[in-house]
């Protein structure tokens, strides 16, 4: 089979969730203006004389999402969480970042759904009621309400490639090389893990870099010398140009991670001071019809029930031609008697 790189390019993470910085920014702007237009129309139709509220800018929305991501991280201890869950959370936040849905949807609610669904997609089947009990004033219904919205948002791509396994591999490789004291490797290992649990989750690293690049960047933050040694080993046969290209990428990724070092996790005061006014703003400008996810979910189901009889079966069926439709009747009867 093709190289590891080629295989990565087949993954949904690469196909759907890798962007250039420019593309990501334009998507964010687009989502933002889409929401503004829809909400303006809704508010004006209800009370034409009121002035429209001031809307959040794309940058402000991003700060909000980052804030809620950080808020969620300490909850890990509640959920026999591992590294895998952590990264999942971020992954499932991707739609938020990309589509800026929190105009429409309350972020705190959505984050619970992210957590629950993330566990499910990773094969931890946690009982819904047990899960809901871990949060104040939360019912299972509320947790599930956004499950479809969320899945749609991430285009049903549930697999996430993460840098944690890569890190384990790198550490084994470093030990095998035998150039460094175990103590030094252990220290870097621990530090890199701490970085990976936080920094890539609150920056755009996952959108721009591969898991192994993110791993190397975190390891470089922990101990630059180790990464240099690894690159020398990895590119021994390919020459300096290839090595430098990779090294540059790692440095760029590192610069991104360094903006949000793990020490910032506990820096609540600063974050809150930025977030408070944003939240106030959000409450004024969010879509009034989509605040209550449970009601929205119910309305959707009910509407589907009502509309059922006139599902355009005929219109679609006609495309297949009458003869097939006739054959279909007899066949169906046949299978019915068989069963």
């Amino acid at each position: 089979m093709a190289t590891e790189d080629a295989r990565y390019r087949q993954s949904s993470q690469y196909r759907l969730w890798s962007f250039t910085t420019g593309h990501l920014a334009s998507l964010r702007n687009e989502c933002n203006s889409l929401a503004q237009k829809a909400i303006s129309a809704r508010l004006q139709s209800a009370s034409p004389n009121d002035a429209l509220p001031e809307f959040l800018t794309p940058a402000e929305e991003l700060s909000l999402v980052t804030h809620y991501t950080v808020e969620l991280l300490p909850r890990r201890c509640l959920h026999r969480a591992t590294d895998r869950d952590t990264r999942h959370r971020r992954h499932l936040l991707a739609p938020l970042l990309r589509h800026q849905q929190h105009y429409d949807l309350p972020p705190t609610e959505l984050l619970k759904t992210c957590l629950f669904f993330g566990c499910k997609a990773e094969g931890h089947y946690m009982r819904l009621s047990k899960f809901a009990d871990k949060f104040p004033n939360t019912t299972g219904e509320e947790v599930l309400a956004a499950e479809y919205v969320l899945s749609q948002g991430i285009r049903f791509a549930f697999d996430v490639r993460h840098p944690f396994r890569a890190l384990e591999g790198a550490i084994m490789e470093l030990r095998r090389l035998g150039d460094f004291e175990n103590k030094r490797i252990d220290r870097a290992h621990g530090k890199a893990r701490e970085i990976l649990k936080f920094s890539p989750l609150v920056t755009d690293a996952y959108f721009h870099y591969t898991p192994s690049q993110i791993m190397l960047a975190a390891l470089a933050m922990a101990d630059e010398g180790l990464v240099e040694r690894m690159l020398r080993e990895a590119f021994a046969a390919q020459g300096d140009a290839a090595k430098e290209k990779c090294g540059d990428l790692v440095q760029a990724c590192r610069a991104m991670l360094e903006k949000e070092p793990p020490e910032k996790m506990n820096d609540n005061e600063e974050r809150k001071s930025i977030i408070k006014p944003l939240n106030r703003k959000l409450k004024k400008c969010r879509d009034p019809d989509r605040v209550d996810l449970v009601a929205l979910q119910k309305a959707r189901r009910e509407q589907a029930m009502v509309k059922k009889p006139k599902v355009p079966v005929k219109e679609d069926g006609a495309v297949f031609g009458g003869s097939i439709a006739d054959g279909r009747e007899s066949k169906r009867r046949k299978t019915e008697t068989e069963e």
Partner: protein
Amino acid sequence: MAVSPLVDGLPNPAARAVSSPLKNAAPAQASSNGTPVPAVAPNATAAVQSAALDLSEQMNEDEKRKYIKGKKLGEGTYANVYLGQVRNDPSQLVAIKKIKINKEYTEGMSPDAVREIKHLQELDHPNIIKLHTVFSSKDQNLNLVLEFLPLGDLEILIKDTANVHYGVADTKAWMGMLTRAVWFCHENFVLHRDIKPNNLLIAADGEVKLADFGLARSFSDPYRPMTSNVITRWYRPPELLFGARHYSAAVDVWSVGLVFAELVMRAPYLAGNTELEQIELICKGVGTPTEENWPGVTKLPEYTISNQITPVLGKDHYNALFGTVGNEGVDLLMKTLILDPRKRITARDMLKHPWWHKDPKPTRKKELPRKSGGEGEEKVGADLKRRPGVVDEDKTNKVARKLDFGGPL
């Protein structure tokens, strides 16, 4: 696909204004969890009825619009399967598998569906069923748009001894395609966990495709347990029957071996009616697992064997039953049925086995035997709608095995 901006025109504000005024406003049942009351009364119905879609709804709608749903190919407890066409090119057919909402399962989206979607999204290989896209319909059912495979499955061919005749070259071709599919899964760290003849569907050109990833999962991390309650009984390896919680890709290889045996015998080789009987059949048909041939086996949680110990059967036994595939073929079969999973051959090594290069050469896929008539289409409908992990047993026993979702999978 999702990288495209997708929104042709912005949702029409006028349309929205028309459909969402408060005249049919539902009582504002929105929970006001401390949020200041908005100036506009929340009205979820209005949001649903309005023409405005947020970006992800819009993307979903675009995916849905790409296909036309046609006649129903099959209906089951777990899913319905429809024939579909690509709207822009109606000559292209697809199968649309609509997952039903299971009322008894109150934990949201079904884990079977989540597993199937998760893995098929990542696996792109000629011998694995292609997942074109996924969309959700208005009533929030999941719809999987799959490659349409009209020629039924290997089970029909195996069973129809009166009309379908095939030989070693054909078996070799089918086994080659199956082995490549399984190798590809394992190479991508996916365990299929439900390999059996009726999950091997046949495309119009004769290509065999591994389908039904409803029980699949990625390889576990070290120390993390998995459920042993997977793989349809007749194809389930001894380590799972003994309740092992840590296992490897070797579980799939055992199933591949039994499909191989079944292709040759034209009947399941080890068809137990219960798990105990299945173990019994393995002891008799392969050999009794003991500490000698499988160090550590007696420590497995559900290790039980009868007093009568059969030594691991030798080549003579297999030659008598499967000799038609030749000396090398028998060797390959025996290696897939090694009791100790650590010694069992891997899918990768299966591909390197000399059998493939011995005469007869595998049949070209266009020349492979096939079943004529419309039966294949019906069968494919029946295959796709089935709940994973269930033995069909001639449809006498329709009770689905209950999987325990409480434990780690």
